């Protein structure tokens, strides 16, 4: 196992610092929202996590395309890393969305387009992992993963639109409030700054975790090769 490259070590430190700063900003710097109170602060992490989730899936989409063209193993590792990380962050997004919804609208769930699409995306990528699990041959696993990552990512905007049109024509409300108003509130300058900062922080966190995960993937490969050589 090679040691962490210098950049990665620096990035680790930077990530931790940014995270600490972001948390401080959210709780101390950003004002408490008039209508919703303290729980509104969940929003900063909720959106950032969702953004990172999408980022992970986008990385998997691009990595999938590149893998199909080049057949280089590293892109399969990148794709898998993207999905795994995206899955976790999207889950955080969904859960924080739920936490936010409860006190505001007195319901654990709103079927609004964004949240619903996020959940469906989560299912798509869980399916991706199940697909990979069912295949022995590494090359086939990589190819199938790449194809499904592409299909999955392309289906997301269409899913979003289909549910959005669904909601505007039939504003069926389950749980007693307007699902389109995802807690709309006007952001003051301080809130906006905090929001942008959390976005940036989560993006840095994403890159850091992605890098670590890719390294892990490469080590796992090396381990497999060593094992094979010993058994041969």
């Amino acid at each position: 196992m090679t040691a962490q490259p210098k950049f990665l070590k620096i990035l680790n430190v930077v990530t931790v610092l940014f995270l600490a700063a972001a948390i401080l900003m959210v709780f101390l710097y950003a004002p408490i929202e008039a209508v919703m109170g303290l729980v509104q602060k969940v929003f900063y992490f909720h959106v950032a996590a969702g953004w990172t989730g999408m980022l992970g899936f986008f990385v998997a989409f691009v990595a999938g395309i590149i893998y199909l063209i080049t057949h280089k193993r590293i892109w399969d590792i990148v794709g898998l890393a993207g999905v795994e990380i995206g899955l976790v962050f999207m889950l955080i997004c969904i859960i924080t969305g739920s936490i936010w919804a409860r006190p505001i609208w007195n319901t654990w769930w709103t079927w609004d387009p964004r949240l619903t699409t996020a959940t469906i995306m989560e299912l798509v990528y869980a399916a991706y992992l199940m697909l990979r699990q069912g295949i022995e041959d590494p090359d086939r696993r990589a190819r199938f993963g790449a194809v499904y990552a592409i299909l999955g990512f392309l289906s997301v905007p269409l899913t979003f639109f289909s549910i959005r049109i669904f909601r505007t024509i039939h504003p069926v409300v389950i749980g007693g409030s307007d699902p389109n108003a995802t807690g709309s509130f006007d952001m003051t300058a301080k809130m906006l700054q905090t929001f942008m900062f959390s976005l940036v922080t989560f993006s840095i966190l994403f890159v850091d975790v992605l890098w670590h995960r890719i390294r892990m993937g490469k080590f796992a490969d090396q381990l497999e090769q060593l094992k094979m050589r010993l058994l041969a």
Partner: protein
Amino acid sequence: MNQVTPFLRAMGAVVWKDLAAEWRSRELLSAMLVFALLVILIFNFALELDPVGRANITAGILWVTFTFAGTLGLNRSMAVEKDRGCLDGLLLAPVDRTAIYFGKALANWIFMLAVAAIVLPVYSVLYNINLFNPGLLLVILLGSEGYVAVGTLLATMSVQARTRDILLPILLFPVAIPVVVAAVKASGNFLSGLEFIEIQPWLNLLIVYDVIFTAVSFMTFDAVVEE
């Protein structure tokens, strides 16, 4: 002698082969049909609606039926190839891989439409609703095309995995949600006699989905069957 057998001839051969084999055994169609009718029956008891309520969710019931029966058909259609090694037989032929894809997809589409052709009259009779609506038929055509286009590709993948049978629905349903949502809404709207202009966004969505996913499916089919 030409190196590659002409595309349409190869595709036609695959379609003819699937239809002829199915006509002999009728295994696939009968399984899909029985299943579809069972689903409709279960809905009848599970939902216990008065006639008015039923009219509102006819579209939903129909499409749930189609999607589940469709999955059965897709699975079987590819499993037949895999089990006797026939997929290899197809890949050994000097034909463009996409001809195989389109042949299978077209055959699967025909099967799904055949099921619809029987389910619609049966449903009409059972629930005293007139389902012979040209708009509805259009939606069934568009919706099933998109579903089958992606489904054929995903079935080819799932049939090569260990967890074969449960994998196809898991892979297909999340990705097919736009089709199902759009098809259900459009069908329901046509049945309630809404203006065409109101239904148009749904039809547009269906067409966009069909185009994108048919394209992506046949472009990536090669990667899914080669070794």
